[in-house]
């Protein structure tokens, strides 16, 4: 499995994402001006502060030429994962439902949280089981996922709610404790927590994030 990790001006976690992908496959960096995804089996839109998070999180990066290629790639069923800022970019690009708002507590928060797998049907959670708990850190100031009530109902119905914060651990006030969602086809997932920072149990105490990076290979196998 060959991962392509996008790099925008202001990306921060792109090297971490490359390293995490490298534990389960191969990974290369894709410059934001590139439209060439040939040879890439899965795309990761990494965390960070693309364009400084200026104007509105993810708003500018979503117009990058690479995002046009990612949109086509996703439409063809290619696996796309958005982490934190990447999640924000994918929502802005319309590849995922909803939008990310400033945390209810208005502060940037960096802490380890427990996530509950709600639906394991997507390409990115195939290695997990519904109900499974994943210990993965969050670090963001704009992670309050929001969508109107009817939309959320429909998403729940369709199994597009992928991950929830464990009871009492919602760090940002997101609608119904939602931490991650997928598109209808299940090949695109976005989440606020950072699975690429939970891949080395000896160093950081949890390798639960690896489950996510392992999943696309299982889906294509």
């Amino acid at each position, binding site marked *: 499995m060959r991962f392509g990790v996008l790099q925008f*001006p*202001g*990306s*921060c*976690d792109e*090297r*971490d994402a490359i*390293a*995490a992908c490298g534990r389960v496959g191969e990974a290369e960096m894709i410059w934001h001006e590139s439209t060439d995804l040939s040879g890439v089996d899965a795309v990761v839109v990494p*965390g*960070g*502060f693309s*364009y*400084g*998070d*200026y104007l509105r999180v993810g708003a500018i990066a979503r117009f990058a030429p690479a995002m046009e290629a990612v949109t086509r790639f996703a439409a063809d069923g290619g696996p796309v994962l958005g982490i934190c800022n990447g999640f924000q970019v994918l929502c802005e690009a319309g590849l995922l439902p909803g939008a990310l708002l400033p945390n209810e507590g208005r*502060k*940037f*928060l*960096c*802490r380890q949280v427990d996530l509950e797998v709600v639906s394991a049907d997507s390409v990115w959670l195939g290695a997990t089981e519904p109900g499974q708990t994943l210990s993965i*850190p969050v*670090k963001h*100031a704009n992670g309050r996922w929001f969508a109107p009530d009817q939309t959320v109902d429909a998403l729940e119905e369709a199994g597009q709610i992928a991950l929830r914060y464990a009871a009492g651990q919602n760090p940002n006030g997101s609608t119904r404790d939602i931490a991650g969602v997928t598109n209808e086809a299940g090949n695109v997932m976005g989440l606020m927590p*950072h699975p*690429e*920072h939970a*891949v*080395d149990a*000896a*160093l*950081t105490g949890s390798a639960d994030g690896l489950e996510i990076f392992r999943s696309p290979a299982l889906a294509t196998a």
Partner: protein
Amino acid sequence: MSTKGKHDEQSAHRQLGLTDPEFDAICDLIGREPNGVELAMFSLLWSEHCAYKHSRKLLGNLPVEGERVVMGPGENAGAVSLPGGWAVAFKVESHNHPSAVEPFQGAATGVGGILRDVFALGARPIALLDSLRFGDIDSERSRFLFEGAVSGIGHYGNSIGVPTVGGEVYFEAPYEQNCLVNAMCIGLARSDEMIRSAAAGTGNALVLMGAATGRDGIGGASVLASAELESGDDAKRPTVQIGDPFEESKLVECCLELLAADLLVSLQDLGAAGLTSSAGEMASKGGVGVDIDVAKVPLREADMEPFEVMVSESQERMLAVVEPDQVDQVIEICQRWQTSAAAIGEVTDSGTVRILRDGEVVGEIAVEALVDEAPAYDLDPAEPGEWIYGNENSLDRRIGEIAGLGVDAAEDSAILAALLASPNIASKRWAFEQYDSIVGSRTGSGPEAADAAVLDIPEAGVAIATAIDGNGRRVACDPYRGTIEGVLECTANLACVGANPLGLTNCLNFGNPEKPTVAWQLTKSVEALTDVCKALDLPVVGGNVSLYNETADGPIYPTPVVGVVGELADATRVPGQAFEPAQTIALVGPFAPSLAGSELVKLRGELDQGLPGVEISEIAAAQGAVRDSVSSADGLTACHDISDGGLACAIAEMAIAGETGAECDLDGMIDARGCSGETALFGEGPGGFIVAGPDAALEALASRGVEVIRIGSTGGTLITIAAAERSVALSLADAATCWRSLEGRME
């Protein structure tokens, strides 16, 4: 010489902060009166900040050499070597005064500045630490400054993708008006690819990269503008600078790419005094001259005067020396990173800094006069006869607050609870959760996990540990001993994670050195820094001095902040602070507690001059034993050094971290030390560790030649400590409530 200008209140030089003799010296040096541009440049390079007028002579004795030193003081940051041809660069710097005016932007731009010092060496920044001081937390202003500084540090560090892995915060009344915001940055580089700042190669181009130049930080120099600009234009000179971490993140990547492509001859950040100091210092270090054409500098505001361009302190800029035929390539790479770059001048063999506007010379100063001839003053130190800072009894108020938290404790237990809730000791989670401490995938032990932050360096097959420390209150009690303790505290923190210290950086935050008392504090403190670093064989590879930290209320506590970087074999084998159940607890090392200068004495309002003596060699030996024990397979499961709040607080912190109680009896220790129960519980001083582990681990530690006194065992949900006539008993839950009380105060 008769060219000297008039000396009165209206003289430009006085308004720019130069004394009459300094102005006369300038006239002598250049053989005439300086024009406006030249005077502006002199006023900055001859300022305390750039010229270290009051500290230069003192700093000369610091030990700066060592086997592992790759770069020492004099460069933008110091650096020590790691295995495999790698080096870690690091430096700490203050941004106190800007933070006192506008804490968010002041702290943010402080982080931006120290990052630039590190990547100016060609090192990729991999970690940040912060050292903060504010007035009493009950003061609204202090909370405002604390809140602003923390979010500013987070804003800049988080956005640029460098983890903030450690730091410290103290709240003491003398910092009320003059808070301290010191930031430390650590970077990683290949030793042989690091770059220096000395300009070289006549005919090479000076390329200015990054943000456009605006009227930032011109402040004082604006007296020079009165003739040239209309008065309303004062509004155009911002008093506060805005940090742009996005611009800097592009600049970091761009500079590192330029260095990797071998396109830069030298590189220097633009900090205080902007182009003037960067160009002047690059020329001075290289023994060359430079020409700068201000008309070629990309401006944020049209119509800036030459002096404004030369002294502007706009952030996020770097100056590079580039071979002429590589300028196009450099500009191309900058464009790819959406960062601007312009050739603004060249290296000459003239030995002068020449400022031109569209080719016409508007200022010309010999580099030597500008940089090397700056005055250096002797201090006039005098020891004060008594404690010069205030004393306020706040213990009852703090104990009252414990009750407010729903903690029901009496007597000694209430003291422990109040100490745990004291903002100097309480968990700083409220602050560090606002920092991304994990980006970069190196953080093994982040904030609160262990006494020092631990970063994995797989490139070199090792890990590094780092801590930053400086208890200004204890330095105020005794500048010499307090400073020694500060360094020992830092190396103790490293010992707790099994790291061997490699190098030290420091930031000397003091009041007005022209006052004898402050001069004495500074002199004693630097003497101590020199002595302790020599005794520990710990080279000082860099630092920063921040003076005049005082207001009408008096000086701040003398606050030498030290940051140490050390090496350990494996980031994954650090025991951390947390107790596990059913382990034996022991006190390790020549800890001789005393209430002098302690948090308890402070709460009681009984601070006074003097601290007990320190045996550096004994303490160093104990630290070595602990370090070796932690880094080998002795089997210690927890390790923590004793500092603020004494032994009782150390034990409580370990119990809270591990959610495991402890039952201790200090009688053995009290016999051995001949101290009172209260002193055993709450007394402070260097040289002590609390460790926990199976008996075999403690025996292994003892066999390393250090005193190990068993004091109890872990388990249960209570923290109980018997100490002769005194005893404390606090439930884990209550202890945690107190220790976690900072969040509530900041709501």
